[in-house]
């Protein structure tokens, strides 16, 4: 029960910004305002503001060819991690159950 409250807390923390931050109307240049951009990209833009002349001196060796492929790889990364955590929870639960039954039987 305690865990469920904690997990609800996480969902609320994720949903609240979605509700709080609303898209503002497009500026005078008619460009759509982007919201929920990656903080990493914003830092990149800030670098060009602080030091306009800076040129990155190394390019990524491989870039995902599209946003879709990138999403796929991120999902793969999350699935790998979540899969293992689930495997541990499953085996740990079963082990605890088995130990309980043997204790009762003895």
């Amino acid at each position, binding site marked *: 029960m*305690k*865990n469920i409250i*904690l*997990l609800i*807390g*996480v969902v609320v*923390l*994720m949903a*609240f*910004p*979605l509700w*709080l*931050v609303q898209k503002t109307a497009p500026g005078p240049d008619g460009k759509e305002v982007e*919201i*929920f*951009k*990656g*903080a*990493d990209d*914003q*830092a*990149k833009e*800030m*670098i060009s503001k*602080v*030091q306009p002349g*800076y040129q*990155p*001196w*190394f*390019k*990524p*060796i*491989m*870039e*995902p060819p599209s946003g879709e492929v*990138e999403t796929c*790889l*991120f*999902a793969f*990364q*999350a699935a*790998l*991690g*979540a*899969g*293992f*955590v689930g495997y*541990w*929870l499953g*085996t*740990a*639960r079963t*082990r*605890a159950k088995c130990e309980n039954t043997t204790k009762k039987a003895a």
Partner: protein
Amino acid sequence: MHIMEGFLPAKHAIGWGVASAPFVGYGLYTVKKRIEEKPEQRMLLGVATAFTLVLSALKMPSVTGSCSHPTGTGLGAILFGPAAMAPIGLVVLLFQALLLAHGGLTTLGANIFSMAIVGPFASFAIYRLARMVKLPFGGCIFLAAALGDLLTYVTTSVQLALAFPDPAGGFAASFAKFAGIFAVTQVPLAISEGLLTVVVFNALKRFNPAELQDMKVVSAQEVQV
């Protein structure tokens, strides 16, 4: 907290690489030794790695209107000690640098330093401190994981401010700008990471009480083995 490929001047990139290398080396040594002595802890090492993989793949929206991700390194730091997280962080950051063009090889050292060294060491120290002042178990875990997460992003801001000081205001002005992007965005995410880490530790306490006691995370009185 990913500094993009090529976005640190060469001198800084090399400097952070040199600073991170001994931690990764020592971390590998401690992990290897631990698994040789206590092979039964292999499963939990997997859980610590997996937790970092999941959390660093989740880009969550924040109140600042931008997205960032938690790090998940507090869990492993509390379980295995902070040094163990350096090689684990390296694996995750390398995966993202090579396949996702997220972070990079030239910025790997700096990114390891923030996510896999400063974060875990902070989490570990905060956990021990909170235990010393006898906060409840869940509170200790929450503070350690959340503040470790936040300090990772503060470190990234420091790294960028050092590399790109503001022409007028110098380091301080530049730090304020980068921290405005990273640290502020991170506050709700750090809270989320703290809550999720508490959930995992509740399960660990229930299912792996012997290991937790063996790792000196909890005392014998707190868990019934």
